[in-house]
Every structure is written in structure tokens, then in C-alpha cells.
């Protein structure tokens, strides 16, 4: 069995948009029957790149999330299609037949990830095909994967235990984007941005020095994390859940400890936490 999938490592993505541009180049004005019809000059993003800015000055964070078609194993677009207009091929790629899908706007609306785009001129929905036409000719990877400079897009046969994607899926913590959609996507992610809490500890009587090595604890929702401030007095807790209450405790010998409650509706920048000498 071949089951082609993609694993996207967010930590490796530098937001260069090579993937988006390579995909646009491959598919603009190029029909690849029976796999796909040509994309228009603009307006369709078979590979989207979503910028995520978190936190606040002077501690912002920047991530990018590349979003191709998720190639779902329980694809709502297949369910919404009539006459077999959308099907999964022998490698697991979900294909919208450019002929059979004419007029079927429901296919577009069915996708919760919104990765299917309606072509008004051709009256069909269109999306990423993992460059099925390209693979069919013996090429080893879609254009986006070929173009990626950092190896953020890992592509291959999930059913081949020797493949890089199978090995990484087995050894690393992977997750689906929006798992609550319940579509069982074949495209999975590593290190999707979560919430973080950051701050800077300052000793009230030593403000001309950064407070290094101050113990900072985070507790909440069954989580207990500990860190120490770095050379700049900064601390950070990453990978936290959204919309969750946590308590931060700051302790340093000779100083009155401090506690702050945070709620992670957004990322939290506590700014300066000033410790008073006892």
C-alpha cells in the first residue's frame, strides 16, 4: 500500500513563501488532465502560508503555517460530491475531477479547512493535488516540497517504514491542524504555535543588573513547569494551552516571592516582575 502524506515542521518554516510561489508556477495556466485544471492568475492558494505573530513588544514571536490540502481520510469534499467527482486515488491523494466536478459548488463549501477554491470561469472547485501529475511522471515530490529550502515540508509514503516521513511520524510529536474537524487529515504538523507566557524579573535594589538565575514556576491544569531566568533576566514558558488559567511564581533568596495569575486567551507578556528585598 502507498499512502502519501506530508509532515510540516513549523520550527523549520522560515516563511519564505517558496512553496506558495512554486505551486502557483506549476499550476497557473497549466492543465494536467485528469488530475487538475489550471489555476487562474491570482486568488487561489493551493498552498497557503499563514503568518502568526504572538506576544508583544519587545518579545514578539513569529511563525508561519503552510496549509496545503489536508488530504483527509474522511474527506467532507468527497461526501459532498456527486457522481464520483471527488475521489481518493491509489496513493491516498484526494482528487477533484475537473470534468465531473463542473457546477458542484457544494464541494467548495464542504471543506472546513477552506482549501478548495471556486473557479468562476471554469465552474469547478480546485485545490492542491500533491502535484499528482508530477508524481505520476516519476518525480519524487510535489513542487512545494522541492522548493522548500529548510526541509520544513516532509513528503513521502507513510506506509514505507524506511521513509523519512514514517520515521519522523513515529518518533516525534505530531498533530493535526484543527483536530476538532474530525476529518482525519493525512497532513500533520510538528510544533504548531500554542500559547506562551514571558516576563522579565528585576531585583528592585539591583536594577542596573539583569536578574539571572531566578527560579520561576508555572502551575495549572495539571501542568507543573520550572525554569530559571537567563542572562537578560528573561523567562518563558512555551507550548501552553489556549484559554487556560495558570499561576506563575517567582522566587529568589533574600527577596519576597511574587505570584501572578495569567489567562491565555492571548499570549502573555508579563513585562517586568519586580522583586522587593526582604
Amino acid at each position, binding site marked *: 500500500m502507498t499512502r502519501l502524506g506530508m509532515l510540516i515542521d513549523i*520550527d*523549520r518554516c*522560515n*516563511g*519564505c*513563501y*517558496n512553496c*506558495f*510561489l*512554486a505551486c*502557483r*508556477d*506549476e499550476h*497557473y*495556466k*497549466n492543465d494536467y488532465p485528469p488530475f487538475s485544471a489550471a489555476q487562474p*492568475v*491570482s486568488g487561489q*492558494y493551493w498552498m497557503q502560508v499563514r*503568518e502568526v*505573530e504572538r*506576544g*508583544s*513588544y*519587545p*518579545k*514578539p*514571536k*513569529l*511563525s508561519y503555517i503552510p496549509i496545503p490540502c489536508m488530504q483527509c481520510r474522511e474527506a467532507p469534499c468527497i461526501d459532498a460530491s456527486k457522481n464520483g467527482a471527488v475521489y481518493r486515488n491509489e496513493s491516498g491523494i484526494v482528487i477533484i475531477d475537473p470534468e465531473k466536478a463542473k457546477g458542484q459548488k457544494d464541494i467548495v463549501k464542504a471543506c472546513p479547512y477552506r482549501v478548495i477554491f471556486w473557479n468562476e470561469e471554469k465552474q469547478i472547485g480546485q485545490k492542491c493535488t500533491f502535484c499528482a501529475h508530477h508524481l505520476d511522471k516519476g518525480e519524487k515530490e510535489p*513542487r512545494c516540497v*522541492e*522548493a522548500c*529550502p*529548510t*526541509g520544513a515540508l516532509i513528503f513521502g509514503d507513510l506506509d514505507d517504514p524506511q521513509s523519512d516521513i514514517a520515521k519522523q511520524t513515529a518518533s516525534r510529536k505530531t498533530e493535526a491542524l484543527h483536530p476538532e474537524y474530525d476529518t482525519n487529515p493525512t497532513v500533520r504538523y510538528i510544533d504548531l504555535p500554542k500559547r506562551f507566557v514571558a516576563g522579565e524579573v528585576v531585583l528592585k535594589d539591583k*536594577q*542596573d*543588573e*539583569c536578574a*539571572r538565575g531566578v527560579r520561576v514556576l508555572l502551575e495549572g491544569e495539571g501542568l507543573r513547569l520550572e525554569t530559571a531566568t537567563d*542572562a*537578560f*533576566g*528573561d523567562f518563558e514558558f512555551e507550548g501552553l494551552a489556549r484559554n487556560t488559567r495558570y499561576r506563575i511564581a517567582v522566587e529568589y533568596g533574600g527577596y519576597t516571592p511574587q505570584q501572578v495569575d495569567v489567562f491565555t486567551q492571548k499570549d502573555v507578556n508579563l513585562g517586568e516582575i519586580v522583586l522587593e528585598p526582604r
Partner: protein
Amino acid sequence: MTEQVFNNLTNCGPVSVYVKDGEIVRVRPMVVDEKDLKPWVIEAGEHRFSPPKKFALAPFVHGERRRIHSEERIGYPMKRVDFDPNGERNPQNRGKSGYERISWDEALDIVSGEIKRVKETYGGSAISGMTSSHHNWGIVGYKMGPFARFMNMLEFTPVLDNPDSWEGWHWGATHTYGFFWRLGMPEQYDLLEDTLKNAEMIVLWSNDPDTTRGTYSGQESALWRQWVKEKGIKTVFIDPFHNYTAGFMDGKWIAPRMGTDAAMAMAIAYVWITEDTYDKDYVENRTIGFDEFKKYVLGETDSQPKTPEWAGEECGVKPRIIRALAREWASKRTVLSGGSRGGEGGACRQAYGTEWARMMVLLQAMQGLGKPGVSIWGTTMGAPSETDTWVPGYGHLKGRVATTDLAGYLPINPTKQRLWRLTLPDAILNPPVSWYGEGFCGQSLEQQFKHFEYPMEGYSEVKLFYRYGGSFMGTMSDTSKWVRMYQSPKLEFVVNQDCWYNSETNMADIILPACTNFERNDFGEWAAVGGYTEHGSSGCNYRVVVYQQKCLEPLWESKSDYQIFALIADRLGMEEQFTDGKTEEDWIKTFFHGSDLPKHISWEDFVRKGYHIINVNDDYKPTPSLRWFYEGRKCDTPDLQNPKRKTEKAGELGTYSGKIEFSSESLKAHFPDDDERPVSPRYIPSWEGHRTEGLVEKYPFQLLSPHPRFSFHCHYDKHTDWLDDIPIHRIKKDGYAWWPARLHPEDAAVKGIHNGDIVRLYNDRGSVLCIAVVTERVRPGVIHCYASSAKYDPLTPGKDDAVDMGGCINILTPSRMLSRNAPGMTPNSCLIDIEKWEG
């Protein structure tokens, strides 16, 4: 028609070009036989780092087919409707006149007729011309080739380029450590391996290598910075903007006020001196003049110790952060990344930018520059790279049709008069102008001190201006003056030759359509400049030489530059002198045979295959930059242009003393009393900065205008519409693709500006409309807006004070240069205000 594939090379990577029915259908990173690639391996700790068997292009190269087939291409020779070479010329209408299509015969007759007339009336020196800073890749067609050869034949007045990428390093850092042959950049050999093996921290000061990419090597080094993360090497970013590399590497961000970087550097030196955490042996044995410098830092010369408290006040950074940075830097093996090629960086293009650049070298000198893990490295060059096989680059005299000793005949220009690019409009409108410096001063330190005056005794003022390219509205300084220049009656005739309509194109009398390198054959090596950037191909994971194959016939009525100049030369009776009896194909063959390539591949095989990969040898021995100097040995790097290398002075740097100079011998010899570029570096407050009384009250924001992320300078923007779908580049609103201006939420709130508003950025020099991006990634008080918009879109064309919708932010930047004797550009010393645009 079946699909055909061709190999070619762009400014940012080699490509395979797929063509069907005379149209490019796809452009991929060049597809090669994997057996030809032998990736090197760097072992560092338990890590094994090795590049993949493919090439990483810069993003916009994937849009190449839109650019080549763009409606913005100049398709036909054009004449300004109200220009009559035999009657009324109407120069005052340049910039607003319409154009009509003419035949090539008519265009060439007019151009050659005007050249003849001007030459006979005033002499060759009345002709001037210039290109932009970059061209399309391929050495036969490159701007230093046919354009220069043709102009030399006419005995024209050349325009010297200011060393734009290098300013403060060129005019300043050279006087600390030499490297004038690299325009102030340090050699970068084998620093990737050295960093991965030995470094603990990298301070990226005014550097966004993931955006500027070392110029030509595409995204080859993006993976290296991923390796730096994997290795656990810490990073610190000093930049008013939390740039894209900072975002990717998630390092510590310190955002000083613009113009105060040298103050922060002084405070770091202060901490090291007072806490005794610098390499005293190195300073003692490898440098001179430290005592004078130390006195200044400690406040013994001016009663102001350069403490972190003092710097904190200037920079708007907490003193304890500066102190902690200094301590981290000294306690770890720290690489300093002061710009895309080691140096460069926007901080060198501001008032007194020499002082910051000098401090970058001197700070690393205090930590033992050349020690393992202690280098000045841009993070974009210095992969293991074979350097035995010589291939000409455009920076080699031997690689230009204008200057190569492979030519039978070389036209020599006897005209001694020169113009300076930055002051060209002033020279035309309001002569005389004078300056020091012979352009890119790569031959010697003394070139920087050569005095020029225009007009020069015995020569004519310029009457005819031949412009190849048209980028300056978006890239030069105070650019409204270029509009005024073009409209001056002193310029009797203006030609513009280009592939695309750019910001200056419609200011010409005659427009000539040139074709791109995809429409003719050429020859080139990826990222290989040579000359002042020797071995630039070490920015690529493989050395790739390409027989750049013509993919299409020249589109519309465009012709290659070479052909255009040959046709004009023919009408001047000088065709043989221009072509040297060679076709473009002959030149390619000449350059091939003049290189070392025939030792490895025959001409026939090279043409058939289309490329040749030069791999690293199995017995490759790294020679890390400046390790030889640190260890007191002779230079053992392949730095070909280092004049002392292979002489008895090979253990010396390119300074007068041969050592690193805290107190500069070269400045002492030539400008001992220059208080704007003093013998020993100082922090000098900017003449257009946060302390400039009378101006900062009116224009309270500092403009930061770095190189753009999704355009290669002006290449690709405007002509490649797919880029308008990338919101970092342009944002579509109301049917227009606007150039973004980034500001902090606090500043936006005060001004009543929201994300997505159209805003006017303005000062006394002009107004530019942009689209607001409200972000936490900018220091309050700073507005970030990329330079190099290719689109000049004035609301009232032809008026020099027109509001520009296209995003040419350089309209707002100052004419004033680095300092009295250092004529570098200063876009990053610019005060502006911003408001929501209601019109």
C-alpha cells in the same frame, strides 16, 4: 509543440525553464543529474550537517515566467510625443509626456544622430550614462560588459557608483582592518564550519540574512541557520525591527533608537575594559592605538565615560540589558554578524555610519577576531567550497567584455571627468559638485582620498544621458531631485534602455527595449562575483556553472543590449571596435576557454549538458577566515585579491600598520583633523535623529528602510504580479497593491491609524502613500518601510513634489551623506511623520 527544457541562471539561483509554444510554462530550481552532486559534510559535536541534493532559490525566482512575459515589458522602441530632435525638445515635460511607438531604424537613427551631434559639439565628455546596481545574470551581457565597452568607445563621463551596500564598512571599517579589496567586508572562508563547531552565540547586529540572503545565493543559507538552531547556538538581534531572521531563530531582541548603534558599541567596550573581559594579548600583539581608544571609552578625553547608563539614555535601551549583552558576548565564543556579507547592514547607511562599522571590527578585535568561534560572519557565505577552478565573474576585469585581456581590442576611455551617482542630479542642476573617493575603492585605501570635481577643467558639462535601467526613484536618496534633473534643459537628450517599465523609464526621450538573459545565450556561475566579492559562490552549497541557454526568441521587438549597442556603433562607423569581431556566442566561448573549466569539461559537453558542478575535493582543508591572523601566521585563505597575500607581508592585514587599528594610521595620514570620521572612532549623534532639534518636533518618527524580502532590489516587484499575493510584499486594497508601512500599536493608536489604513508618510522632501501594518515587531518611534519599490506612481506625474502611491520611500530620505569626507548614502537617518490618508 512539445515542451522543451532549458538551463539558465538568475540573480538568485539556477533554473530549469520549461517552454511550450514560445511561452515559459514553468520554472523550477535547476534539475541536474544527482550523480553530479557530491554534498560535503560538516561534523560538529554529535551532529553531521550536509546539504540536500538540490538548489534553494529565492522566493521571487519562482515567479520568473510572470516577469519575462509581463505586460510591463518594454516591447517596442518609443519616442516621447513632444520631443523632436530637429525642433522643440520640451525637456520640462519629461515624466508626464506620452509616448508613441517608432521603428528600430528611426530610434537608432535618432540615438546615433544625437550621440554624433553632442560629441561633435561638446566632445565625448558631454555624454554620460549609467546602469543600476544589478543586472540580469550572465557575464557576457552584464552591465559592466557591453554598456561599459560601448560608453568607453564614446569617451564618456562615467558616473561612479557610491558603494551602497557597504558604505560605513567601505569608508570606515577599512581603516581598522584593511579588506579594501572587499570594500570593507571581511573574508568569509569556512566560517560555516567554524561557527557550527566552535561558536556559542551569534550577535546579529543590523542583519536580516534570511531576507538579504547574502545577495545572490538564493536561500542556500536558510538551512545553515536552521543548523545553528539545532546546534543550540544562541542568537541576539540588534535591530529596530524584529526581523524575519529574528522571527525564525527566536533570539533575544534588542531595539536601539536608530542612529545610536555606535553608542551601544562603546558601552560594550566600556564593560569589557572595566571588567577586564577582553583579550588583552590579542589587543597587545595584533592591534595598535588601543590606548587612545580606551581613553575615549573611559571618558578621559571628553569627560563622558561611555557607560551602559550613558548608552541606555542615548539608545532607549535599559542599561542592564547592554551590560548583560556585553557580559554574555565576552563570556561566550561569540560570532558577530554585522550584515549580510559579514558587514553591510542598514546601520552603515546612516549619518556617521563609519563609526558603527569601525566599532564592529574593533569589538571583535577585543575578543580575539580569528579565534575559533570568534569571527565576523554574515551567515550567508563560507560553506566548504572548492576555489582552485577559476571561473570569471562580473567583478573580474577578465570577466567583462569591456576590460578582459581575452579581447583582441579594448576601447580605452581617455576622459578623466567623473560624476558621483548620489549627487548626479545636483551636478546637472546646480554644478559644481565635489567629493572624495573613486567609487568602489577596491584597489587601495588611497582611492578613498582622491578628490573629484565636476565639471572638470578641460571637459564639458553633460548634455546627453544614457540610462540603462530605471530603478532610482525607489533606491537612491531624496529622489524627487531625479525628477527635476530629468526635466532640466541642460540634458538635451535622454535615452532609457531597459527590459521593463521602471520608475525612470518615462522620463526619457527615446526608450529602447532590451531582452532578458532568457532570450539569449550567456555564461555564468551562481553567485560568483569575483573581484570585490571573491569566491561569493561559497554562499551556495555547490558551485554551479551554467551555459545559460536561450529559452525564447526576444519577445516583441526587444533585442539584447549587446545587439543594440552594436547597431548604434554601426551607425557611428564603430561596429568592429565594439564587437571586437565577435558575436555574443563567440564571447561565451572566449570566457569559457579563458577559465579553468576546459580542464574538467569540454566546450561541446558543457553546451550539451548545460551546466557543470564543481564539487569540494575529498582532501578539502578548511582555512577559516582570519585564523591565520589570530595565530600569527601568513594568510592561508584563498583570498585572491588580498595584495599582501603571497608576499613577505602575508601575515599582515591591509592597513598601513598591518594590524587592526583602534587609531587609524590611514585616516591620520590623510584626514587627521576630520572630526566627523576621527582617527579613533567616536559616537557622534546623527544630524537627522532623535536629538535633532527643530526637526524631530515636526517629524517625530525614524524611518527604517531595509532591503525588501520578496524582491531583488527593484527586480521582480511591479513586474511579477504573483508577489502582490504575499502580504509581506504588497497588500491589495481597493484594486491597488500597496506597499506596507509597519508601526507599533502605541504609535498607531495616537495617530488613529488601524491595520489596513492607507497612510501618508511624509517630511519636507515629499510624500509617499503606503498601507499600514500595525505590529509588535517594531520599536515605538520607528516606522519600517522597505526600500526598492519598483513602482513610482505619482498622483500628478511630472511634478517633482507629487505624492507617490507606489511606495518609493526613498523620496523621503536625505541627500546629505555619511560625513564631510565620506560620500556614502544615508537612508537610515530620516525623520518623518505619518497620518491616515483621507484623500
